[in-house]
């Protein structure tokens, strides 16, 4: 416990995040003083986002400080909340009840337990193989065939995104990279920083110079300018953080570029799902439950690929 505090480079990463928070808060407050009526809502929204970032970083810092178990519990909780938002909004029927109960209380916790006991083989196949067979079987046994394929697919997709994909972020702590033992928490932080900064920077670049929409039907806020600017600057940031990772600067550039692209893909796919269901944010339908899934959609796609890239290239 608290081993994280002895890892100087990890502490530096945390100070870096703190620095970003302070700078963005100062910018936010400066903008607030100069705001005009036309920019009011954008700036208030920006400051609300910054406040939320302080809270999220604080929670994350506490979890990482506690150690691997802390990070594992935090991500299990995020999975739970994200899956709760997803399943609430996806139409399910009475016949799905027991399957859903299993998804929340057996499949999802088991996925995180497998990371805890470091059983990689089972961790990797439990949801894509076992849950894949279990979900439709269990719905079929319940006997309601109305929209059967849709229901089975939607539930399986939710488990894949919210539990399986996301669990690859804390699973980074499983990796035994020669010469990097005991520092896996830095990889987790690296992934989260690059992925989330890519989101933030795409938003910022988009607001500043965004003009040409990428897929306006899916997500009206995503522009080519925001995409290129955000990905380029987040990749630059990731490259600059190479000292905290087992990567060379060039490898770090490749890794962070991959994270940014996948993060973009995750955000785009979840936006398409939201359009399909007919909502703007996963959090808005039930006010106060601030859209956890909206925040982590990019991480869900980036985490598993980042995990496997490292596992393939850096773990003998």
């Amino acid at each position, binding site marked *: 416990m608290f081993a994280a505090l002895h890892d100087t480079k990890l502490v530096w990463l945390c100070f870096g995040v703190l620095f970003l928070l302070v700078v963005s808060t100062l910018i936010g407050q400066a903008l607030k003083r100069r705001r005009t009526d036309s920019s009011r809502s954008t700036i208030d929204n920006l400051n609300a986002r910054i406040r939320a970032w302080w809270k999220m970083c604080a929670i994350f810092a506490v979890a990482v400080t506690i150690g691997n178990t802390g990070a594992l519990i935090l991500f299990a909780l995020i999975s739970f909340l994200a899956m*709760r938002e997803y399943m*609430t909004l996806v*139409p*399910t029927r009475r016949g799905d*009840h*027991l399957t859903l*109960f299993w998804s*929340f209380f057996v499949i999802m916790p088991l996925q995180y337990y497998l990371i805890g006991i470091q059983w990689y083989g089972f961790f990797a196949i439990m949801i894509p193989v076992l849950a894949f067979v279990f979900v439709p079987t269990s719905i079929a046994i319940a006997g309601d065939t109305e929209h059967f394929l849709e229901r089975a697919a939607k539930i399986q997709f939710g488990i894949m995104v919210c539990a399986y994909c996301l669990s690859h972020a804390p699973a980074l702590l499983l990796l035994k990279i020669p010469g990097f033992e005991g520092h896996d928490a830095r990889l987790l932080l690296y992934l989260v920083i690059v992925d989330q900064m890519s989101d933030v920077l795409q938003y910022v670049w988009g607001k500043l110079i965004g003009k040409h929409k990428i897929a306006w039907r899916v997500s009206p806020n995503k522009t080519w300018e925001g995409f290129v600017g955000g990905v380029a600057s987040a990749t630059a940031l990731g490259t600059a953080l190479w000292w905290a990772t087992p990567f060379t600067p060039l490898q770090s550039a490749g890794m962070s570029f991959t994270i940014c692209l996948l993060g973009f893909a995750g955000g785009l796919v979840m936006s398409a799902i939201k359009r399909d269901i007919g909502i703007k944010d996963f959090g808005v339908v*039930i*006010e106060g439950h601030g859209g956890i899934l909206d925040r982590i959609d990019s991480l869900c796609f980036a985490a598993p690929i980042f995990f496997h890239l490292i596992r393939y290239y850096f773990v003998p």
Partner: protein
Amino acid sequence: MSNGIHPIASFLAALARGITGVQVQWAGCEPNERQRIYFANHTSHLDFVVLWSALPSEIRARTRPIAAKDYWEQTSLRRYLAANVFRAVLLERGVASKAQHTEEAHFVGRHLMDQMVEALGTENSLILFPEGTRGTGEKLAPFRSGIYHLAQHRPDVELVPAYLENMNRILPKGEFLPVPMLSLLTFGKPVQVEPDEPKDLFLERAREAVASLRRIGNA
């Protein structure tokens, strides 16, 4: 009076709030200490506990549920929960409609009414599910007449409609394992019986008051 709440009741209320993640919206009135009858749609065993837990604790201590005697007296656990933990007012269901003669129906009806009026007393509020039984959540069943007679007996008591969203997906009838979906509880504008308003008209109006609070279309 707030310490008149049974500790198990407080525990179950907290548990129910955790499972349902319920968001409470007072859309048509504010929580206050007036005597009230809260009436809502009924799809789940969690309905009462969630609605009850949404009230401020000093009001909660004086708010009792109306529940079906035949169901809540079946096992000793249910009996204990109903009588000791939640101080439920247990009423016999459907006896009035099964009665052979109109006089008999009137007599039984009056007896039920007396029990509810007595439970209200001078300071209590009640929670009532006028559909009389748990539904599937698709459509509200027609309301039973109890709420009409009660409103006529005690015109000073406010009738507050409420809608519980998604409870049928969290813990539907016949299941005992909950699925932790998110839910929403909306309190609406109080309704009143107009002078000389026929029973059926009022019941339909009260039902509409509950149904209009629905926000999310369930599958």
